[in-house]
């Protein structure tokens, strides 16, 4: 099995319930390293929920329940992310997420990007500013904002805000990046910039992309999945 070497995420028999109604039924999936895996399908079928099972974010939502097994390979070993001893904050620093609507926090551009560092308790200012710059550069935003890092992040355009959110997710160097329709609230041009950015990021991250746009999926994804009727099917 030469492939196992490259497997990043291993999902086995995943069930998900909301209010005791199953949303996901018995999903098993392997996701290779440094690829973009696209998930498409009708809306309201739990694509976002599927993403949230990978960083345990669903735990913040009431009346939800999960069954099954998810392993992610950090370094050389697979880790069961639902292990009781596994720290959920650490997990989310390794598995970043970008949402459908850009969600900059009500603070300056710089502080937005540095926020995850603050959460982690890293107080080294010089190292911090270096990492912020690096994250902004990797998300193609540095040139546009380098002169106004102290401005309110919410004053940026929609596309810029979304790249800011990607930069914010990247500042901790995550190994996996979950993208929940990152271009759906943007115009075509801004969307294209984000697509280019994602292709560039493939060398560092394993990405799972939820998207409505089949053409987008075709352009950038390495493999495509469809989620419908609570089942996940490989499309190509």
């Amino acid at each position, binding site marked *: 099995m030469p492939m196992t070497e490259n497997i990043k995420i291993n999902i086995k028999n995943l069930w998900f319930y909301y209010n005791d109604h199953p949303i996901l039924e018995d999903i098993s999936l392997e996701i290779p390293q440094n690829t973009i895996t696209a998930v498409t399908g009708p809306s309201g079928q739990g694509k976002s929920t599927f993403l949230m099972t990978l960083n345990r974010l669903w735990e913040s939502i009431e009346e939800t329940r999960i069954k099954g097994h998810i392993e992610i390979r950090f370094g050389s070993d697979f880790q069961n992310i639902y292990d009781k001893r596994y720290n959920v904050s650490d997990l989310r620093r390794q598995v970043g*997420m970008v949402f459908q609507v850009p969600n900059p*926090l009500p603070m300056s551009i710089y502080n937005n990007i540095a926020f*995850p560092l603050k*959460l982690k308790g890293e107080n080294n200012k010089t190292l911090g500013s270096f990492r912020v710059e690096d994250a902004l550069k990797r998300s193609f935003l540095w040139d546009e904002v380098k002169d106004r890092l102290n401005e309110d992040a919410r004053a940026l355009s929609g596309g810029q805000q979304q790249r800011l959110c990607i930069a914010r997710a990247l500042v901790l160097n995550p190994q996996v990046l979950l993208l929940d329709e990152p271009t759906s609230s943007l115009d075509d041009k801004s969307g294209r910039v984000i697509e280019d950015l994602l292709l560039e990021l493939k060398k560092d991250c394993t990405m799972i992309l939820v998207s409505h746009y089949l053409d987008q999926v075709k352009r950038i994804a390495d493999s495509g999945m469809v989620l419908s009727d609570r089942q996940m099917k490989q499309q190509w």
Partner: protein
Amino acid sequence: MKPEFFDRLFNYFSWGCSILLVGAVLTIVGFLIANGYQSLNLHLIFDDTRPLDAIFLKSQVFDGLFPAIAGTLFLITLSIIVAIPLGLATGIFLAEYCPPKIKGSFSLLFDILAGIPSIVVGLFGFCVTIFLHHYFYTRLFPCLLISALSLAFLVLPYIIRTTQISLETLPLSVRLTAPSLGATKLQNIFYVLLPSSLSGILSGIILSIGRCAEDTAVIMLTGAVATAGIPKSVFSSFEALPFYIYYISSQYSDNSELMKGYGACLILLFICISLFVFAHWIKKRLSQKILYRP
């Protein structure tokens, strides 16, 4: 024919009632202004004492409203200092930590606390004081501290409720941002959730301040007196504006004292309405600023 008649009646009735109520309010305010505007001057507040001397406590004001206004301010400050941390912590617990099963009973209890007549809370404060005085600490009397604590209980449910509701109504996107970046629950609460619901919480606090400023029943049982001067410590009796109004209304000795009562009414009304308007302004302005979305 007939339906139109009802329609007209309905119209007249609505107009009539609205005019009646607005008229009643205007009468009340107009009556106070017509009788009290002459007494609104520095003399009303400071009597014959020089204002600066009074403010820096160099000399005391005897027949002015200054001690009552100062007493009310001390009272508000103290009770808010007690009520805010307690109310915020409880509101956070209800919104973020409380298991749904016991949430119902908790909120029922706070609704009941909000509904208890204030005089009952005052009586409770009075009796606890007497009890403590009798069995533990004989230097404890009904005083500023006791009044402030009792008032804090009275406004506690307002702060709890506004905190809880402001937190609970935050959109999921705001709620999930920080956790997705590795924030712990506590970090999420302090860095994102509380700042985002600040406007709602603040306006709740300001409304509670208004409640502290206006309540009379609690303080008349727990330490407000007719003459006290500026309170020396939290263990002193004190004067307060609403109590002064009550006191004057029942026992003014001459017309000039009654005039001071009208003046005090206008000042208290002004304070309370300003706080109310301020609360609404904060709610509106801050929410535009903080909950701004492109």
